């Protein structure tokens, strides 16, 4: 309750809330693809190697988020290329890119003169620092994601569902696969402000994974995952405010706990149904 009265008074909290809600859109829509296509590991690789670009931008005195955007797209294309060309060594290579990207970032940041506390806010996010310029950028990224998904919905569906069959139908699979990874990359940048690049992967997968427990179409999954993402950010923000906890980490804990509860609930429900079917069959 304290949170809601504070929300009324402090513009920084309002910005944080708007930022969180904008991030939920990207995480719900693109997170659904990450979950159904099972590219969580690829998304993890993309998000961590983003630190390289952020560090370089920071060192050169440019906008770290701009650097993150460039680095994320480069990492996505690199990882996509690795997956398409060296399928056998995929996990080793992505693991290497993951670590090398972070190492580059840390080197740049350590050589940047001045205060280096911002490293923590890149890694773990700082939603309370979201400013109006960030909000505009986040809204722009959301618009880009929504437009791309609206235009390429069928192709993305085909490529996520069955790449081989899509290729046989003349769909340019490589192009749409890389485009999808680029969308994952810009979503990572969208979420960095909120939870930081280490925790991005949780917000990218957990709401969509919970949604998958309850709905049976990709479109509904995106919608429910967006709503869940919004719920988790607002709840996390609210819970973290009074005891002054880190907002990003609190949001992730709320999402993680919800996922666990949902998983236990759906497993129990499935088992109950099976037992009922078995009983009916025996009668």
């Amino acid at each position: 309750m304290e949170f809601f009265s504070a929300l009324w008074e402090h513009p920084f909290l309002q910005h944080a809330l708007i930022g969180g809600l904008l991030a939920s859109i990207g995480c719900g829509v693109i997170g659904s693809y990450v979950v159904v296509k099972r590219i969580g590991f690829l998304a993890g690789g993309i998000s961590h190697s983003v630190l390289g670009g952020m560090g370089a931008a920071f060192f050169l005195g440019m906008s770290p988020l701009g650097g993150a955007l460039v680095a994320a797209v480069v990492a996505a294309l690199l990882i996509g290329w690795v997956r398409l060309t060296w399928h056998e060594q995929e996990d080793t290579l992505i693991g290497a890119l993951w670590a090398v990207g972070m190492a580059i970032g840390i080197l740049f940041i350590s050589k940047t003169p001045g205060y280096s506390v911002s490293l923590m806010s890149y890694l773990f996010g700082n939603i309370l620092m979201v400013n109006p310029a960030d909000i505009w950028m986040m809204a722009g990224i959301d618009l880009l994601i929504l437009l791309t998904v609206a235009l390429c919905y069928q192709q993305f569906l085909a490529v996520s569902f069955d790449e081989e069959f899509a290729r046989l139908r003349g769909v340019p699979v490589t192009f749409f696969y890389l485009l999808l990874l680029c969308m994952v990359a810009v979503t990572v940048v969208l979420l960095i402000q909120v939870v930081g690049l280490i925790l991005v992967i949780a917000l990218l997968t957990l709401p969509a994974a919970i949604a998958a427990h309850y709905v049976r179409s990709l479109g509904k999954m995106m919608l429910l995952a967006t709503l869940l993402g919004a719920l988790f950010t607002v709840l996390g923000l609210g819970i973290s405010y009074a005891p002054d906890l880190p907002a990003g980490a609190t949001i992730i804990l709320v999402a993680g706990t919800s996922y666990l509860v949902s998983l236990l609930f759906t497993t129990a429900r499935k088992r109950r149904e099976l037992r009922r079917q078995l009983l009916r069959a025996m009668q």
Partner: protein
Amino acid sequence: MSAPSVVSLRNVSFSYGGPRVLDGVNLEVEEHEFLGIVGPNAGGKSTLLKLMLGLLEPLRGEVRILGEPPQRSRTQVGYVPQYPQFSRDFPITVEQTVMMGRLGMSGLFGNYRRRDRAVARQAMAETEVLDLAARQLCTLSGGQLQRVLVARALACEPRILMLDEPTANIDMRVETEIFDLLKRFNKRMTIIVVSHDIGFISGYVNRVACLNRTLICHHTAAIDGDTIRSLYDADVKMVEHRH
């Protein structure tokens, strides 16, 4: 030769980097033929199909489908894979899955038109899965899923239908039903089916290609115990039959 071949393989060899999987394979398939490709496991049957689909490139030799390289003609080919690449719990309905067969033909952004829906529904009706249209893939039985995969291939309106072990994981009764369906489709398209069960398919196909690295063709009536013994290198249960 009478009609031009719809499938033409000349001296095709292939390897995955190790020993030759296929060696000097020649094959001509005419329009409206029902060809069965049989042979032992790891004999190169699926590989041969993938070469005909242009998913693999031959090491040597030439593959022509409908007179063109397979990459150019494959939108006119319907394919039923042995192991579908998708996961069974993907949130998608039967109808959406069958609609995927229309991808190459749909509009600029892959949006489906009314005709695409009509073709997909027709395909579902022919494979008797229309009443499953709204069901999720994960709720289907093995036989139902196989029919959906055939429907998806049929929705491509193919001139050639290629099936890789379409009945490997389903029971005998459903196997018969699926081959009865194929027999009916054969009136309007060429069918190539890979199987390990020569005894069963020889009741349906016009010609059997026996593949174990190299390929030998037989008209179904000419298959006898010796052919099968030399192919599998072991005694195989078989029933003599004449057409």
